[in-house]
């Protein structure tokens, strides 16, 4: 999967906006949206929030976790624990990028938030590599990927599955026999 596809999925997450226009409920394949009333907060998918924001039709209310104090706590926790801690959103990375890019004027301390999320990400990626290596070293058969997000798995996914595939085949070398007499010329 490509990062653009992970981001596409993230755009279905809901965020709260405060519209400055009024519109009746609209019915779409993906579900109903609205109704929209000026000054009245309403939950919409991120793709719509960004679209409205770009056209200056709304103000965005950042998700609760997109807050310096909360993110500091998350970062510290992540650094303290050996395992992956649960993230506030399965799309924390994508949402941070999208919302900070399109609505940074509605998000207090945007730059600090960007840095905190990036620090957390870096810590998690370092852990991911460490655990991938120990997984390979100990020749484990399965691994728990609890609390890892799609984007994180994505950056190393192809590499890791290919490597594990190679390792599996090199391990079948250890059991001679059955298939040994192949006829490839």
């Amino acid at each position: 999967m490509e990062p653009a596809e992970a981001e596409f999925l993230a755009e279905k997450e809901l965020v709260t906006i405060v519209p400055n226009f009024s519109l009746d409920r609209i019915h779409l394949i993906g579900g109903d949206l609205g109704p929209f009333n000026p000054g009245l907060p309403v939950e919409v998918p991120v793709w719509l929030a960004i679209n409205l924001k770009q056209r200056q039709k709304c103000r965005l209310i950042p998700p609760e976790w997109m807050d310096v104090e909360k993110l500091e706590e998350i970062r510290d926790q992540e650094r303290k624990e050996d395992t992956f801690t649960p993230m506030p959103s399965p799309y924390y990375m994508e949402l941070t990028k999208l919302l900070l890019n399109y609505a940074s004027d509605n998000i207090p301390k945007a730059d600090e938030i960007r840095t905190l999320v990036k620090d957390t990400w870096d810590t998690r990626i370092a852990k991911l590599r460490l655990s991938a290596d120990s997984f390979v070293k100990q020749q484990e058969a399965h691994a728990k990927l609890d609390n890892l997000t799609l984007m994180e798995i994505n950056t190393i996914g192809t590499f890791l599955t290919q490597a594990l595939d190679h390792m599996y085949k090199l391990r079948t070398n250890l059991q001679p026999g059955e298939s040994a007499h192949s006829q490839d010329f």
Partner: protein
Amino acid sequence: MSEAYFPVGPGLGPEENFLSLDDILMSQEKLPGRAESALPRLAFALGQGAGADSGDSIPEGSKLEIPLWLAKGLHDSKRRIISMELPKIYKEAWRTVFSADANVVDLHKMGPYYYGFGSQLLNFDNPENPEIAQTILQTFINRFRRIMDSSQNAYNEDTSALVARLDELERALFRAGQKGLNDFQCWEKGQASQITASSLVQNYGKRKFTDMDG
């Protein structure tokens, strides 16, 4: 990199992939052997050059160098007409080097199909087979970390020094790691949604100009 071209990958392990270009080139690599009986009319065919008095025949006990595909085809565990030996990198002395520190070995120079070729050597009923198989696997495991880290860290830099000592399988793995990294960085910079020209097309564009120059 082209996004729609997916070549047939190498088989690795006991089976080759019949249609894999990588496996064909891998099985083109030579290994040492010996004629256990006289082989009439084969000296020229095997590129041994005719001996002074033996005509086109290979005398018993002659040393041979033949490609893996041929060694596999001629191998017969019941009637041993030629016997195959291990290339030195799979022998005990080198296995010791690998177990001491697999990362120091230049697998490109010694291979370049260390894993694939080594796996295929197990076809020849060598008594050392279990140790060879174990060494190959352990080498991969021990070199894994360095390949992962270098492929996931090297952004926007010349990677030729990083891959110089990797065997072909490791290089493909390195490329996969680089793609993961580059795709992510591209996304972070906000370029992931950009539609780009096909690399296939770009190649032809360049090609056309160089053709005109030449």
